[in-house]
């Protein structure tokens, strides 16, 4: 029994599997193409295709060994060696498809950190778990049942939890959708949970193949799967829809000066432009009495008064100004998630008013708010400078607090 990839059904399946994986990833959309972690995580979503097909192939291989009566013959090799040789072609086919999938996401040459590569452990472990458990099913069930069941159950397990609540259920499957925008990194819990579930699957497979009574086998396998699921659930419970957490502040690169500007390393090339626009904007806003923080940063967490912005590569001057202006507005308060937030009505008018003073062209201002918002700002601009500042400060307070109504001149 030698290893011959090309004599295995897996060799026939490799090309279509790689083809499907490649086109699935080509059509999917994720974070910025220059953010390495986002690209890797997107490549890792290939598990949704690779795992079900590999599970079907592994069940097939298990059924072949069962049908051939290998286990009734005198053993010249250990069972582990026979299983590893039988599953090697399937594992190789899966690895080729995953490598091509992840590789296709790397053609944009994104910036990678060594820690980003940890995300690749997830698809490998998930596909490995599915392969081993499906092989055990192929050994214990008729092939007619085992092969389609392995494909469909693997497929449902990976894809269906996305439609379920609580939202954290989806993080147990290793299907890393929604990872990551540039200000986030993968939550370690979202890496650990699928590893625990896969360990449970491997343990269940080992128990299913152990020479013990059928009842003990079934109970033991069910217990191992349940233990893996419980461990995975305990790891990710409480998480939201995205498997992410805030990117560490320490990742930013800074440029000192009149205004201290800190951007994510992927945006290093924008430092001077952002600093130049921020300094100019600050001068214009100080003329009308609007104070700004001395640190402009893309980091969302951290202490001290900061001017938090979000940019991407290759923005125009006006787009950078827009980002800086939105950075001056407070984030929505937590109370807005659970109750009325009347202050939100002031969001666009305040952005337009700041944009007017920042020198944003009128055409671009229309993208900041509606015609109604522009009319409100025209009415405000007819007031004295001190009254305008009062209007701004009142609405800023309304934006920070759900209990304070906004002050809008053209609306009742």
């Amino acid at each position, binding site marked *: 029994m030698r290893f011959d990839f090309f004599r295995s059904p897996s060799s026939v399946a490799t090309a279509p599997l790689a083809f499907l994986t490649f086109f*699935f990833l080509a*059509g999917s*959309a994720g974070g910025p193409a220059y953010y390495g972690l986002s690209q890797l995580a997107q490549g890792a979503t290939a598990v949704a295709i690779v795992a*079900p097909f590999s599970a079907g192939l592994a069940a097939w291989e298990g059924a072949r060994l069962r049908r051939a009566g290998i286990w009734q013959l005198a053993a010249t090799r250990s069972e582990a060696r026979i299983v590893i040789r039988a599953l090697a072609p399937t594992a190789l086919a899966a690895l080729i498809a995953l490598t091509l999938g992840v590789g296709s996401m790397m053609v944009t040459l994104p910036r990678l950190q060594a820690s980003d590569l940890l995300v690749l452990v997830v698809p490998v472990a998930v596909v490995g778990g599915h392969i081993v458990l499906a092989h055990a099913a192929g050994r214990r069930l*008729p092939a007619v049942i085992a092969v389609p069941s392995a494909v469909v159950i693997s497929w449902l397990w990976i894809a269906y939890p996305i439609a379920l609540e609580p939202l954290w259920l989806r993080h147990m499957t290793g299907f890393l959708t929604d990872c990551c925008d540039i200000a986030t990194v993968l939550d370690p819990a979202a890496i650990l949970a699928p590893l625990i579930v896969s360990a449970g699957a491997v343990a269940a497979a080992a128990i299913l193949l152990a020479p013990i009574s059928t009842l003990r086998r079934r109970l033991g396998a069910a217990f191992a799967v349940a233990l893996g699921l419980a461990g995975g659930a305990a790891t990710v419970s409480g998480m939201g829809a995205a498997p992410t957490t805030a990117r560490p502040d320490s990742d930013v690169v800074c440029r000192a000066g009149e205004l201290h500007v800190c951007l994510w390393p992927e945006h290093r090339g924008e430092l001077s432009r952002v600093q130049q626009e921020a300094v100019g904007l600050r001068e214009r806003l100080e003329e009308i009495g609007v104070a700004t923080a001395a640190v402009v940063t893309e980091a969302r967490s951290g202490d001290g008064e900061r001017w938090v912005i979000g940019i991407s590569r290759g923005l125009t001057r006006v787009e950078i100004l827009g980002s800086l202006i939105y950075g001056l507005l407070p984030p929505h308060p937590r109370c807005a998630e659970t109750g009325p937030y009347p202050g939100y009505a002031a969001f666009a008018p305040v952005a337009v008013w700041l944009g007017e003073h920042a020198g944003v062209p009128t055409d671009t201002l229309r993208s900041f708010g509606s015609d109604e918002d522009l009319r409100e700002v025209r009415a405000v601009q007819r007031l004295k400078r001190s009254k305008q500042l009062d209007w701004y400060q009142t609405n800023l307070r309304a934006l920070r607090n759900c209990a304070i109504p906004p002050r809008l001149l053209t609306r009742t």
Partner: protein
Amino acid sequence: MTWWLRSRGATAIAAVIALQTGVCSLLGGVLVPSPSLAAGGMLSVPLRVIAPLALSTVTLLAFAHVMQLERAAVRRLTLMDAGVLAVAALVSLLLGSLAYAVDFPDALPAARNAAAYIGLGASAALVAGPTVGAATPAAYVILAALLSDGRGDAAWLRWSMEPAASKSAAAIAATLMLIGLAGTARFGGARMSAAEPRGSAA
């Protein structure tokens, strides 16, 4: 006759038909997200497309163990084998129609899909063996989800996702069922178990 019925898994087939009708009546409209190449992300597939795979699998399971000795049978076992498939599909359609009449709109398309999967699986099993036969409807479901975009692209592939009123879906299902029945009536279950793919022995 009793033993023959038992060898064809009549009890298991009846149980799965009842289960399928119940599950698809109540939950057939539940949407399962699935990776889709054409939609560029995820597409939702109704459960009534996936659940009927159980019936085609259980039906083909019986034929996986048919002995070659049956080829020498005096009775027309090939017709009787086709009869098993036909009865499984028709009972499923009958129960699905009843549930549809009682206002469970997903029961009938689920039964239509089951009939089509049985025909598709039997045809594939006659050519390549019962394992490939059982895997073919499952592969169809996943490929249909992968290649259609939920709107116009690859519409011919997504007939199983159409509602009960779709005439084209009914025509495709009937065609698949009839091809499977005709093949089984001609060659019988013994051919399915004999038609193992090359290299199936380790």
